[in-house]
Every structure is written in structure tokens, then in C-alpha cells.
């Protein structure tokens, strides 16, 4: 047994070395922007600024965007939640049931928040009257084009769906080896966005405000058929996710895709040209079915949530001081611009009103609609369903009719367990 005990002892020793990382910082901040190579330094700058302003230190926990949701759940079930976490706006309803999530109205006061923040931005963090999150940056998901590629193909920015398709054909025929529109065809979360937008463009809807699934409609069918046709005519390509879209557009191998304004930061990085590439980044109105229709885009933003035992906190807690700092004018007039996104407070928005890119973006995307799937607690499940059915039709595994019918059935089943979110 001698060797065994020795070995076990050694193992225990090794294990304990890893176990006891002391938490010396005042609070922990879990962030996906911090994990993005192009942005790490910018976020670190925020932490340094906070330390200089309030004398408190922050332990940054960087996680890839795709890993965040899972990680927060794992941490919730193991009581290792960070003090503050950065979320995508569509994740919030999924986490609303976590009992450590702080209602920030109880910390800052509802009136106070409503006076400070832009209404559209604040609304993204509100669920049933509880302010579970503060916005960090905001904007919309709309269409982006590469101006250089459009020029190369000899086309103008399209306004109607028909013109859009003509433009795609021109790009396909004039730019060798290109994917004219890098429609999302791989990742369920990204497919959802593309399908939702085209569905709106065709006059359809996935779920109504009461939670009734309404995707089984002629409009949704023609939207999905439109997407299938793009793929069949090689105007879009399989195996494309957002990072591929950004990379292809940055390399001049693609003309269009849907993304948030923040995409410019990635394009600078992926093109290797830095800010010199900005002239090619062209925010566009999403094409409309008939001339004169209102253009559509999806509400988008990054949120900040606070976790605390018993879900209680005061404005003097380190985490809340940190939230205050991140939404102060000092940060809001600079950080969102670096992220190529809109600030979230009224005063900061006024201060950056002359930024050409953001103005162009806001002008192009107009009033954006809330993500109709992302506001439900079963958003993750529904995203999988929609992604699978759309993908099934795109890849020719099932007909458009079958996909839409199956989507209706499966979504209805999923909604049976859902709790209304906002």
C-alpha cells in the first residue's frame, strides 16, 4: 500500500496547488470582449481606469463568446459566479431565473436609471419591470457591405430584395472565388439572426408578443425559400459562420453580411489594414421587398449583470462602483467608439453624435426590432430548433414546407415550458 499512499499524496499535493488560487482582487469581471485578442488591451484599459478612479482592483475572467453561456450556468450551479459579467442582450432571459442575479433598480433606483440611460438601451436589460442588467454598448444588427467589392462588381448599394439579388449575381460573376453574401449557414445562433431578418423582410414573424408561434405562414415560407435559392445559385455558401463572414469580407472575397456595428473592429484586424480599411465598410439598409417598405434590423447590445449572494447589493459595493464607472461619461464617450458601437447613456450619445460611422450606421439600420426569440427563457432551445430546421432546408435535406411546419410544431412544444420574459 506504501506506493499507493505516496502516489495519492503526490496527486493530492498537485491538485491543491491548482486549487488555492487566492482571490486578492476586489471583484471579478467575466467578459468575452476581454477574450478577443483585438480588444483585450482596451478592456484592460477600463480596469486600469477604474483602479485609478476608485482604487479598486478587478480580476478579469476572459471567455470566448461562444463559451460564456455555458460557463455562467456551470458557475451558477457550482456557486462560483463572478461579481460582474458581460452578456449578449439575447442571453439575459435565459439567466433571469438565477437566484443570485441582482435587480439593479434596487441598487440605483429606477428613476435614476431612466434619467441616465437611453430608453432603448436600458430596455434590453429589463425583464418584467426588473432591471437585471445595465447596457454597456448598444446598436443594431444590420447589413454591412464591402464598398471595394461592390465597385469591383460594378454595382450600386441595393435597396430592394430584387436589386440585392442582382448585385449578388454581379459579384458572383465578376469577383472570382467569392461568396457574394456570406449568409450564416453553420452556427444555429447566427442562422437565427439571418433567418429572423429575412423573415421580417418578407413580412413574417416567428413568435408574437404573447408567445404564440406564428412561423407557419406564407411569408415565412417565402423568406426561407429566398434563402434556399441564394444557396442554390451559389450567391451564398454552406459552412459559413460570423467569423468566416468577417474574414471573407475583410479579404475582399465577399460583398455582404449581417452584423453589429462592432464588426468594423474585427474587419480592421482581419484585413490587416487597420483603420485604413474603414473606407470599405459600408453600413446599408437591409433590402426591402417593395420599394418604400420600412427597413428592418435587430436590436443588439452588450449588457452587464451583477451576481451577489441573496441578490442584494448597494451602490457602495465594489461591483456596483464598477458598474457605475463603466456607464460613466468618462468610459461611455470613449469605449463604445473603440468598439465601433453606440454608447448607452443620454449624455454620451449626445457627445458622440458627430461620429460619421455610427451616424451612418444608425441612419442605415433605423429603428431596430427586439430579437423576438431572444426575449424568452427557452431562447437557447428555440435557437437550436430554428437553426436546425433552416439548415435542413438550406442543405436540401427537407423541403421548405416541411422545415417550416416542423419548426412551428417544435417551437410550439418548446414554448409550452417557457416563462414569459419581458
Amino acid at each position, binding site marked *: 500500500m506504501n506506493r499507493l499512499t505516496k502516489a495519492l499524496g503526490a496527486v493530492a499535493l498537485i491538485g491543491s496547488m491548482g486549487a488555492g488560487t487566492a482571490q486578492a482582487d476586489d471583484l471579478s469581471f467575466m467578459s468575452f470582449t476581454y477574450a478577443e485578442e483585438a480588444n483585450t488591451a482596451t478592456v484592460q484599459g477600463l480596469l486600469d481606469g477604474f483602479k485609478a478612479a476608485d482604487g479598486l482592483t478587478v480580476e478579469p475572467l476572459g471567455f470566448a463568446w461562444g463559451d460564456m453561456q455555458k460557463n455562467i450556468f456551470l458557475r451558477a450551479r457550482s456557486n462560483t459566479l463572478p461579481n460582474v459579467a458581460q452578456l449578449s442582450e439575447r442571453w439575459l432571459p435565459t439567466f433571469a431565473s438565477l*437566484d443570485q442575479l441582482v435587480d439593479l433598480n434596487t441598487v440605483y433606483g429606477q428613476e435614476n436609471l431612466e434619467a441616465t440611460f437611453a430608453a432603448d438601451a436600458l430596455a434590453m436589460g429589463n425583464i418584467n419591470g426588473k432591471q437585471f442588467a445595465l447596457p454597456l454598448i448598444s446598436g443594431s444588427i444590420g447589413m454591412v457591405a464591402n464598398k471595394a467589392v461592390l465597385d469591383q462588381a460594378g454595382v450600386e448599394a441595393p435597396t430592394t430584395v430584387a436589386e440585392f439579388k442582382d448585385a449578388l449575381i454581379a459579384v458572383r460573376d465578376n469577383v472570382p472565388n467569392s461568396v457574394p453574401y456570406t449568409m450564416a449557414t453553420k452556427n444555429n445562433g447566427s442562422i437565427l439572426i439571418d433567418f429572423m431578418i429575412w423573415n421580417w423582410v418578407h413580412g413574417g414573424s416567428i413568435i408574437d408578443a404573447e408567445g404564440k408561434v406564428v412561423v407557419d405562414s406564407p411569408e415565412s415560407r417565402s423568406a426561407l425559400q429566398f434563402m434556399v435559392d441564394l444557396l442554390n445559385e451559389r450567391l451564398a455558401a*454552406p459552412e459559413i459562420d460570423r467569423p468566416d463572414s468577417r474574414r471573407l469580407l475583410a479579404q475582399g472575397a465577399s460583398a455582404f453580411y449581417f452584423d453589429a456595428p462592432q464588426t468594423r473592429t474585427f474587419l480592421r484586424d482581419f484585413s490587416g489594414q487597420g483603420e485604413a480599411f474603414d473606407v470599405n465598410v459600408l453600413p446599408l439598409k437591409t433590402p426591402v421587398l417593395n420599394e418604400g417598405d420600412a427597413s428592418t434590423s435587430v436590436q443588439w447590445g452588450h449588457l452587464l449583470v451583477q451576481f451577489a449572494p441573496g441578490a442584494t447589493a448597494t451602490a457602495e459595493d465594489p461591483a456596483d462602483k464598477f458598474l457605475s464607472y463603466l456607464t460613466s461619461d468618462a468610459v461611455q464617450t470613449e469605449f463604445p467608439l473603440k468598439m465601433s458601437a453606440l454608447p448607452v447613456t443620454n449624455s454620451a450619445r449626445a457627445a458622440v453624435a458627430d461620429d460619421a460611422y455610427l451616424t451612418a450606421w444608425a441612419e442605415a439600420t433605423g429603428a431596430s426590432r427586439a430579437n423576438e426569440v431572444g426575449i424568452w*427563457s427557452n431562447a437557447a*432551445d428555440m435557437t437550436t430548433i430554428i437553426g436546425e430546421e433552416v*439548415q435542413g432546408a438550406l*442543405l436540401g435535406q427537407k423541403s421548405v414546407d416541411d422545415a417550416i411546419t416542423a419548426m412551428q410544431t417544435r417551437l410550439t412544444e418548446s414554448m409550452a415550458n417557457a416563462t414569459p420574459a419581458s
Partner: protein
Amino acid sequence: MAATDNQFADYPISPAANRGGLKAGQSRVGLLMLLPAALAFAAIILYPFLQALGLSLFQYTVEMMSPRWNGLGNFSKLLSDPAVWGSFATTAIYVTLTTTGTLVLGLGWALLMNQSFRGRAVLRSLSLLPWVLPSTVSAFIWGWIFNSRYGVLNALLMQMGLIDYPQAWLSTPQGAMLAVVLTKIWLSIPLFMAFFLAGLQNVDREQIDAARVDGAGNWAVLRDHILPHLRPVLIIVVVLGVIGNLQQFDTIYALTGGGPVRATAVLSVEVYRRAFEQWDIGIASAIGVLWVATLLPPAFLYLRMLIKGNN
């Protein structure tokens, strides 16, 4: 450590060597030796299994902070869910293809590596490489080869004039399955080769030489002398292969994530996705229990046969 085959040559091997074991009355020491492993087994494998068995009877979804009794509800839901049946079929296809593929190519490579030719030693060492690469690395390599825009597979096929446009292999059910199967075969060949090489050491060369004098050709030697000798190795290799392929998660998850749609969602991926992506712990447990229920009886019988045969 050379010539391990003969390490017991100094000791007379009694007819009881493999059957009798040590005298009774020593069994207390024996039990004591078993104890640590048995405890570890109970704590890390058996207990979690029983707990999952229990959880399969509860509803436990993302909206709930604690599980709620659901009886056989999960199972009745699963039985009417075509996606789950699809996963069983996908798993059967995946395990059959990978196990057969690895057996054939592993055996073939072992036979080649058993011939003597110049450079054999180097080639043998190098052929262990796929096995020691982290599985994420294997998935990267094959993902890159199969890449729809820049993959070398498309380039080769286009150069040969077999296709006009790059194909998105990982986006078609067959292509994705091909990719995950090839990846798994590729990284399992070395292990199987090692086992078969070991088995080939026991083949009686004199017998083969005698057969050759009688006019037996290469094919007859393989069929009548080599393969029969490899039977015991074959049996264990099939067990290890099936276990490994059934449990395979890493390369599939990294390569296709179970997609496109569910084309490569084998049970291991399905359980993971339900449990840790959709947070439906009850259903995930139920799928796992269904898996064990299907698999355990034949596995048990097969293993009993194996152990009996060994004794």
C-alpha cells in the same frame, strides 16, 4: 527488457498456471489489493451512474433550480422523439464504420510493418504519431483538409477534374460523417497496429515455412496461419475499438459539433448537447440510460465469453 516473450522461460509453467491462482486463505490480501480500485470505481463511476439513473426520472430544465419528479415522463417523451432514434442510428453507423475501417487498415499496416524492409523501424515509430496528438489537433488537421474553401481535398478533386466547384463537405450529412469517421480511423490505426504487431509475434514461423514448402501462397498463409493466430487479439481489439468509438466525443465535437443539423450527433454528443447546452438534465440522463440499457446486455455477454475464454 529484451525478449519479453521469453521472460518466464526459467520457470516451469505448470498446467495450473493460468487457472488455479494462489491458494485460498490468501484471499484477504487479495481483497485488500482490490479495495482502492473498487472504492475509486464506486465513487467515480458507479455512484454517478446510479445518480444519473435517478435523474432520468426527474424533470430538470434550465428554468428550474431543482429537479421535479417526472416518473417515466422523460422516457415516453424520448420514445416519440425521432431525433433520439436518429442518434441511435447515427451512432450505429459511426461505430460500425470506424471499427471496421480501423480493423482493416490497422491489420493491413501491421502486416506491412511486420515485413522487413529498409526504413521499417522509422516508419513504425512515425506511424504511432496520430495516436499521440491531442484529439483537438487531429480535428484541426482534418477540418482544414475538409475545409470548404481552402481545403486540400477540394483542391485535389478539382485538379483531377472530378468537381467543378469546391464542395462544403462538412455541410452535407455524408461528407460530415465521412470526415468524422476518417479522423477517428486515422487516430486509431496506431493503437490497433501495435496490438496486431504484438499478436504477430506469436505466429509460428516454422509452421508457415512448412506450409510454404507444401506450396501455400501468400494468401493461403494469411488465411490459414496468420489470421487464426490473431483471433484472440482480434477479439480484444474489437472490444477496445467499440468502446472507444462509442465514447468518442472530442473529435466529433471539435470537427462538426454534431452537425450539420444532427448528421453526426452520435449519442455521446447528443447527451452533452442536451445536458450542457440546452440544460435539460432529465432528458440527457434518460438518453444515457437508454443507451446503457441497449448496450449493456450484449456487452456483458460478450465480455463474459471473453473472460471465460481467457481463463
